[in-house]
């Protein structure tokens, strides 16, 4: 009987052994427990650190939302992985695919847990908003690589391995990006209000190039002014609207 702790150790040390456990359908219950625990603790910690840029209630909000993004992504990617794997002539069951996606996300979450103190230290050194966002994204990318290693071993040898891995990573990036976008804000500028989730507005596809330009130092001054006007307009109604 493999314990939950042993499963966590195995997730970190031996993705190949975890992959063979999943293939054989052996000891999946402790693996699932270990994976869910790892996702909850790892991603919640990282989320809390990201939220600490603004502090206060945002720490709790981000800590709560990060695992939600991870679990939502898992739920949406697993069926796609089943379909793609079957199309590439690999025998799969949804339970195995879910276990593999869960294990890959758990491994990534454990790496997030490891990176969290470094990110917290960087944010504690009063780096700017853009740098904080960039550092958080780099941490996320590193964790993603650790998850990818798990996925790679889980897919196993044979034809179509690289195609399946590439397609899965593509779907994963798109879905997790949209999930994170739907559940924003994460860092929250000091000038903005803390809310649990922003209403749907601009699209991720519009925001990404703008963020990239801002990160490169080309901050969109016009947009900043617009935002300032919007905020001012939001605070005015109490004074100016209604019958006089």
């Amino acid at each position, binding site marked *: 009987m493999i314990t939950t702790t042993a499963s966590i150790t195995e997730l970190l040390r031996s993705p190949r052994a975890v992959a063979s456990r999943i*293939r*054989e*359908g*052996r000891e999946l219950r402790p693996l699932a427990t270990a994976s869910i625990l790892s996702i909850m603790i790892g991603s919640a910690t990282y989320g809390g650190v990201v939220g600490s840029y603004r502090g206060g209630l945002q720490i709790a909000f981000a800590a709560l939302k990060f695992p939600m993004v991870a679990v*939502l992504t898992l*739920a*949406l*990617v697993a*069926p*796609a*992985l*089943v*379909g*793609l*794997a*079957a*199309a*590439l*002539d*690999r*025998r*799969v*069951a*949804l*339970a*195995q695919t879910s276990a593999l996606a869960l294990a890959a996300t758990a491994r990534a979450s454990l790496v997030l847990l490891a990176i969290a103190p470094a990110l917290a230290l960087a944010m504690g050194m009063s780096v700017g908003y853009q740098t904080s966002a960039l550092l958080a994204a780099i941490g996320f990318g590193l964790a993603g690589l650790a998850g990818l290693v798990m996925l790679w071993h*889980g*897919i*196993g*040898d*044979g*034809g*179509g391995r690289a195609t399946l891995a590439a*397609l899965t990573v593509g*779907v994963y990036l*798109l*879905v997790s990006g*949209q*999930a994170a*976008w*739907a559940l924003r804000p994460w860092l929250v500028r000091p000038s903005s209000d803390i809310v649990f989730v922003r*209403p*749907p*507005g*601009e*699209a*991720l*596809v*519009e925001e990404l190039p703008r963020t990239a330009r801002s990160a490169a130092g080309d901050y969109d001054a016009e947009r900043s002014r617009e935002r300032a006007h919007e905020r001012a307009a939001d605070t005015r109604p109490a004074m100016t609207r209604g019958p006089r």
Partner: protein
Amino acid sequence: METNYAWGQGALADTSLAERLVGKRITGAATAIANIATASALSTAFGVAATLGAPSLDKLPHALELSAIPLAFGAFYAPSVWVLLTLFNRTIEAGDVARAAMRTVSVTGIVLGGFAPAVAFFELTSGTGAATAFAAFLELVAISTAGLLALRTFVRDTWVALHPSERDALARTLLVILVCLGVVLGARFYPAILSDLHGGFSR
């Protein structure tokens, strides 16, 4: 072509819907009909998911059209391939081509069905015009992926069904032409259906 057993040798795989749909063992007409019905339902689920941004009952027929394209491919292109290969003295059983066509329908269905939850999520969380246009673009990518994987399945199954001594340049050329026709068919109809589902996407 052999199924890759590197992933899924455990007991869990035996009950897999995916295995039942795209596996090589089609035991009779009832199984074939059940597989086609399941695959069509999965394709339709993708179509319905694509309408969730602005749901309307009027769009349901367009969602059903999504499942009609692989069926049309199977009904028209597969007999054509069998006739052409036979005409050029290649030994291939009609049943093998029919099985390949059936697997093509199944592969399209299972890939589109797999993408359906993600598509629904994108549709439900895309607020502005740019976001919905991006969601529509991703749906086109998903459909293209499904179509290409389905074509790959058909070509590989047909190739394997040919007698080894007859797998020559002519047979290869015929299959390449078939792939081109399949791509044209997909490019002709899928964006139009997506446009109907999204209301003017192609513009």
